[in-house]
């Protein structure tokens, strides 16, 4: 997004997307999206369902043709046959795609053959990957008999079997236990440390915090791209104040308070409210006019706040709470 990044040579990027547009009939799923992902980066992709995340990933994995724009993955562009592009990347799709009626070993053997993994190296690679992802069952177990978290582990192992430069993970932790999620992210960090690029989509904000940079998508457009800290700073340059009930404020206080000068927005946040000042000094002046029955403290904005502000459809100022 920044001029510095654009100046870099194409081959230097793990993923290089320029003006990518994907249309299905009249519907534009991805609308003029450009971004670059550095080698060894953990790149997060956030957005509501239908924002165009999966479509973008499918294009990058050679599964969909772009309607226009240019993409390069591992330095390889689009050709008639995308085998070059596909050979550099591993893909773990949203849906569980291994065969339930085959054993773990048979599934991996199948993937290995499709990915041209030398037969001699298969055993060693499997052993290394099983250790990496934490899979400790018998490899002759039918995949269908494994619990969800373990299926994800095997899926990841299958996606990594050919040592891809870049691995695309589309909501890899959807529907698995918090414990499995934590372990999964430990693996992702290990991969990045080893120099592999991880491109991941998620709905979990705590997972997004782990990413080096995050791209936010809305309605097929890329609306923000930065590090988690950068996103927060950019979205809330004057910080965030959390309001909490300490008594019983007057009915309609929030509407009146949000009209005051210096209030950028006031949004309900669970049983609390998040207030965004409109200037650096605004909160200093507003503090004195805080209605009775409310407590306030300055907090660090979370990614969820960023997500709500940038990705959720913007509401007109003052109509934040109804």
């Amino acid at each position: 997004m920044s001029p510095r990044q654009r100046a870099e040579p194409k081959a230097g990027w793990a993923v290089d997307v320029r003006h990518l547009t994907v249309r299905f009939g009249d519907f534009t799923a991805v609308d003029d999206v450009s971004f670059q992902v550095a080698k060894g980066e953990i790149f997060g992709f956030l957005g509501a369902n239908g924002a165009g995340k999966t479509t973008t990933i499918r294009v990058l994995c050679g599964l969909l043709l772009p309607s226009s724009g240019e993409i390069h993955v591992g330095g390889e562009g689009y050709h008639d046959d995308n085998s070059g592009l596909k050979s550099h990347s591993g893909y773990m799709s949203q849906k569980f795609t291994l065969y339930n009626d085959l054993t773990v070993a048979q599934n991996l053997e199948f993937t290995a053959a499709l990915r041209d993994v030398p037969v001699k190296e298969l055993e060693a690679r499997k052993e290394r990957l099983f250790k990496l992802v934490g899979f400790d069952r018998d490899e002759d177990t039918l995949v269908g008999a494994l619990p969800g978290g373990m299926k994800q582990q095997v899926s990841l192992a299958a996606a990594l079997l050919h040592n891809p430069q870049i691995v695309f993970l589309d909501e890899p932790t959807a529907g698995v236990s918090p414990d499995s999620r934590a372990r999964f992210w430990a693996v992702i960090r290990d991969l990045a440390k080893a120099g592999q690029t991880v491109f991941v989509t998620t709905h979990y904000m705590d997972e997004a915090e782990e990413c080096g940079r995050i791209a936010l998508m809305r309605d097929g457009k890329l609306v923000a791209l930065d590090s988690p800290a950068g996103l927060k700073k950019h979205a809330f340059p004057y910080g965030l104040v959390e309001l909490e009930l300490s008594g019983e404020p007057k009915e309609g206080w929030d509407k009146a308070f949000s009209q005051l000068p210096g209030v950028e927005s006031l949004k309900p946040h669970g049983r609390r409210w998040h207030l965004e000042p409109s200037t650096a000094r605004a909160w200093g002046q507003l503090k004195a006019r805080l209605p009775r029955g409310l407590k306030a403290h300055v907090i660090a904005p979370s990614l969820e706040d960023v997500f709500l502000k940038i990705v959720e459809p913007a509401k007109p100022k003052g109509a934040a709470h109804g």
Partner: protein
Amino acid sequence: MDDHSPGIFERLATRTEGIFDLVLPRRAAALARKEARHIVRDPYTLGMNLLLPLMMLLLFGFAISFEPKDLAVAVLDQDHSQASAKVVEAVQGSGFFKIQASHGDPEKDVESERVKATLVIPAGFQKSVGRGEDPQIQVMLDGSDNAAASVVEGYLGGVVNSAWSRLQVERGQPAPLEPLEFKTRYLFNPEQDGHWFIVPGLLVIILGLLCVLMTALTVAKEWEQGSMELLLSTPIRPMDIILGKVAPYVGLGLFDVAIVYVAARVVFHVPFEGSHLLFMLGSFLFLLVALSQGLLISVGTRNQQVAFQLSMMLAMLPTMLLSGFIFPIESMPLFFRIFTAVLPPRWFMTIVRGLFLKGSGLGQLAVPFTVLALMAVLLTGLAIRNFKTDVEP
């Protein structure tokens, strides 16, 4: 509990799957091996491939018959003479009919559905035979069952006619001049055994249905499960996918060929006059054609149910009705006669019957073999070319 212990089919498949590595490139071989494992672990696929041939053989081999046997016929003998008794005896002795007592009204007999026909021998029959006249015998047929009626008419007519000739001869009169007497000699099936005709034909029906269905379903299933997405994210080419999908089903199809062949020879005693090598080659070509048809159907749909219905519509009707299985192609209207040329089952039918019954050689079967080979190349090529490698909805 989740330990997997292989069953008999699985062990058989494990022993034989090495062959895929010999004849196919690595990716296609891997796909074929995977597919073979699906087949042996899916009771539905296995059951269909075992039960459908057996069911068809039972149904067509034993239940459906094209010659009369113990057909119920009522006789109303109004003459009560020696001559009429002889006619009744001849009908009974022929083995084709089972005589039921008439209730007195020939029409009611047929109407009640008790019998297929009523034979009425009018009073004065013996006298008219004695005078050397043409005696009248009436037959009431159940026209609502057209097929049975014409069979009964033909056989009953024949039996009664010959009984009458014998009566004439017994009376020292010259045998009546029948307008035309056929001396029929059935080549290739001297015993006129319906099974000889039907059972080899069943091979065409069974393969034509199963093979189209199998490949159509297996591709649709991969789309439904989402595994096609994983498959296509690897550098596999459409050629590998088609080869890998077809190969294991060729094996399964040859298994069905063996079932029908053994049943035909051992159970129904159908002769096999031709070359077994040609039989294998013909079966192989037809398998390729039928499997490619299934793959072409799967290009059009990613839904198993739709694939099933399309296969049934596109494979079942032409195979059953227009392949010459039951209805001879020669007696179809011109349009259909020409139309059958594009239907693979029609050509395989010629090959199968030629090999089983006539002992035809490659010379006589050159046309059907050439047509099937061309179709195999064309359809496999079309399937490879049209196979979609992107997941666009």
